[in-house]
């Protein structure tokens, strides 16, 4: 068969608008996502871990096939795009029919429809107007909405509930597209990064996952941050007091905790981590001159502190965890359990500098060259940082709107049944007058059957009541005049 150029788009359309294609695409998405969970993914794995798990050769091939970052690979995004396209095309293909069904409900029955309908009952009646009136009264009692359809000679009743349920499936698919759209917007215009702040610090440069830096048009100050613990020592709460500073003015302030971020102009700041910076905030020592009373002073690194007009002391070095080899002091780790402090005492008159060491884990007193002062360790404060996750997701509102819409759609689609009743008075095959009652539901047929039986029973009772009441005593209802009696 020759393929003309113009038929190619048509064929593509036909293929994509096919439910089978949609299912195949879904299966591919499932396989791809599962693969992405079994193979370690670069964005969430340390480089060390990756090289430990895979040999360089395997890793090269995985990278080549883009399997180490499946969820951001172009082919995965293309797959999701195709799924969306398929949903759109299938929906477009089916929508006109559904809309016709929805907008112009089938109200009037014909003989063919009546014979093919599954759920139906025929009740003998004597007069068609009376029969229809009885049916109307019964339906009213059971709270069914009623429409009277007069068509020339024949009048019939039509009643339906929850017609909207037939459109729910389009709402669900549209909501899925809305969620995808939100995700795409966030993928294109959103960003996220990390901001580490120490107490009192203001920052406006965030580091994204790829290591790139992004400058925010405003600054964020951390006034204070802390951690609260449970009795057993496990963390209970991390908090940071943050403020947004723009053009030198504080425009917003909030104390954030894990689960409750600060939001400013679409940017959200989350409490992500909290810990020691490894730097020293301050060292408290008791400085005692050779004669006289001592006093407690707080030293900060490389900041000279004047003890008296002639003498100043500087904290020149801080080693959080030291060890000694060849009479030299080295750093073992960043864990401040075994610290060493080097103090330099400057005598301005002599111009002499004395070097002292303080090893609080061994002795409170400083040792070293003579300086005219004795130093004793009192306390040390480590510097803490608060780690903030920063994210900008302009598409998230579409996602939430999609979620709500999907919830509504699913509820309507699964729990609201489109039920229809047709009631018409006509002669049966033998020419006897009957009331024909037919019904249909688009799902949950067994439950509908119960409802249908209730309706039939109601009509039967009304018919019986009507026939027992003497004709003369019967009140003539206004509708009766409208009915064209056959």
């Amino acid at each position, binding site marked *: 068969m020759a393929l003309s150029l113009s038929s190619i788009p048509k064929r593509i359309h036909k293929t994509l608008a096919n439910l089978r294609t949609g299912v195949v695409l879904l299966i591919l998405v499932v396989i791809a996502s599962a693969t992405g*969970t079994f193979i370690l993914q670069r964005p969430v794995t340390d480089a060390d871990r990756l090289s430990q798990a895979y040999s360089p050769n395997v890793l090269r091939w995985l990278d080549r096939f883009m399997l180490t970052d499946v969820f951001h690979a172009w082919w995965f995004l293309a797959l999701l795009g195709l799924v969306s396209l398929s949903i759109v095309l299938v929906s477009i293909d089916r929508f006109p029919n559904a809309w016709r069904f929805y907008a112009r409900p089938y109200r009037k029955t014909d003989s063919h429809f009546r014979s093919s309908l599954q759920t139906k009952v025929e009740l003998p009646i004597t007069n068609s107007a009376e029969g229809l009136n009885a049916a109307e009264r019964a339906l009213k009692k059971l709270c069914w909405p009623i429409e009277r359809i007069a068509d020339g000679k024949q009048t019939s009743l039509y009643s339906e509930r929850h017609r909207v349920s037939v459109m729910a499936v389009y709402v669900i698919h549209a909501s899925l597209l809305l969620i995808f759209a939100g995700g795409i917007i966030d993928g294109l215009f959103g960003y996220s990064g990390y901001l580490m702040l120490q107490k009192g610090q203001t920052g406006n440069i965030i580091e994204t996952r790829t290591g790139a830096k992004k400058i925010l048009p405003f600054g964020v100050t951390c006034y204070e941050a802390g951690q609260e613990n*449970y009795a057993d020592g496990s963390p209970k*709460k991390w908090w940071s007091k943050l403020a947004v500073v723009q053009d030198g003015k504080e425009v917003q302030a909030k104390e954030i905790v894990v*689960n409750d971020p600060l939001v400013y102009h679409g940017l959200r700041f989350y409490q992500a981590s909290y810990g020691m910076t490894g730097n020293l905030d301050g060292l408290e020592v008791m400085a005692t001159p050779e004669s006289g009373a001592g006093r407690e002073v707080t030293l900060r690194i490389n900041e000279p502190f004047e003890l008296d007009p002639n003498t100043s002391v500087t904290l020149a070095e801080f080693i959080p965890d030291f060890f000694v080899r060849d009479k030299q002091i080295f750093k073992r780790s960043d864990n401040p359990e075994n610290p060493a402090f080097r103090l330099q005492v400057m005598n301005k008159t002599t111009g002499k500098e004395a070097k002292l060491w303080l090893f609080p884990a061994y002795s409170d007193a400083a040792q070293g060259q003579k300086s005219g002062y004795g130093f004793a360790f009192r306390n040390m404060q480590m510097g803490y940082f608060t780690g903030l*996750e920063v994210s900008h*997701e302009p598409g998230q509102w579409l996602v939430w709107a999609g979620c709500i819409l999907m919830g509504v759609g699913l509820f309507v689609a699964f729990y609201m049944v489109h039920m229809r009743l047709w009631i018409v008075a006509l002669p049966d095959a033998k020419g006897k007058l009957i009331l024909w009652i037919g019904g249909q539901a688009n799902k949950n047929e067994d439950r509908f059957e119960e409802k249908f039986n209730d309706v039939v029973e109601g009509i039967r009772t009304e018919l019986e009541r009507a026939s027992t009441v003497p004709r003369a005593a019967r009140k003539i209802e206004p509708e009766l005049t409208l009915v064209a009696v056959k």
Partner: protein
Amino acid sequence: MATRARVVKMETPAATGGNALLILVGLGVAFLLITALLGAAKAGGPLFNESNLLYVALIFYAGAGALYMGFGVTGVPKYVKVASVATAIGFTANTLAVAHRWYLAGRPPFASIYEMLLSFVWTVAALTLVTEKKFGVKIIGSITMPLAVVCVILMQLLPSEVRPLVPALQSTWLHVHVTLAMLSYAACAVSFALAMMFLIKDHFPTETFLALTSGLVSAIYIAIIATRFEKWGGLSVTAWDAKDKSDMFLGRGVRLFVTVPDLGWLFVMAGLGALLPLVFYFVARVQRNDSYLGIANKAIFIGILLQVIVLAAFVLRVRDASYASPFQEGLYPTSLAASPFILGGLVSGVIASMLYLMLLWRRTDLEGLLPSADTLDRVTYKTICIAFPLLTGMIAAGAYWANRTWGSYWSWDPKETWAAITWLVYAGYLHMRITRGWRGRRAAYFAILGFGVVIFTFLGVTYLLPGLHAYA
């Protein structure tokens, strides 16, 4: 609406045969209760605490499971009455256990895999009672009660202390998310049980059930052997730190394994034993000779025997012993608590084989007990219609919560991804059923596949593919 189960003609006189199992189960339950009571009295401490209540629930669930299965085999209607009473008692104890834990912790029990299982078992028991009373599917307990028993046994082995909530879990969304998850997973479990029953009622060949059972059990063994078989026939298990009541760790997230000598070979033998029926099944299919199927049905007995031996050997050798580790010098203690999933796998294997035997022996009676295939098919679909919106809500609530905690509503974390896969599988089921008119077997296969994915998402991902979702 549902066709009520008919009582089937009995070959054995119902009076004597009927009471034997009742007496046996009654005695068993009473014995276990009394020993538990004595043990609790001896140990002192409060009687109505969570672990005692859970133990009571376990005993009654096990009794109920035995009676449901007995009902399946004999068709004595009395069994099912007593079984549902036992289920109700177990459910009450289970509810009290949940309430006790809730009261002690001051929050709903949703924060660890132990607590999730507690809620899951509770929901499964509740749904079993509902399905039985409302839809008349009496036999459903013979599948869901053993499931509940396996879960409670797993729970006995998992760390169960009430741990305070880590900061990320302190959110109302935890409750919304987990409640929805439990409800939907339990609904999926029920749909799975119903789909299995549909296959039975639909004259699905018994041999195929045999092949599937054999395949499932050998898959369990292959999974264990592939990950745990050591050189010279040992089996590696996680070392247990009795002081901290947790697995022993070498480093961050790296568990210390010790090797139990010779146990590996035993597992290989049992795995081969479990594989035998499948092999004979294929031989019968290839040779078109049904006499091999008879051999396959005999082979399953060898399989069960080997499985029970392995189970006993595993329990005896791993419980409170010390073994050497290939990674570090010295002997390290082991405990069943450190290998809950191996034990769970072994118990599930035995139960699956037993369920098959029930089918093999009493197929016609079983079919008589079940509602019509049409009803089962429809109820399966309805259960999935309940599960699917719940699943959707669970994912949406999780995304919203993640957005407040991790800073992103979707991070392609393994748990998230697998939840999405579960959703897609059930979405596929609904599409095929609604637009392609899939009914009956194909729909039942889909429902079974769906539950397989649910189990993997719930338990498999937690233990095999750790990610952000590290709590459970």
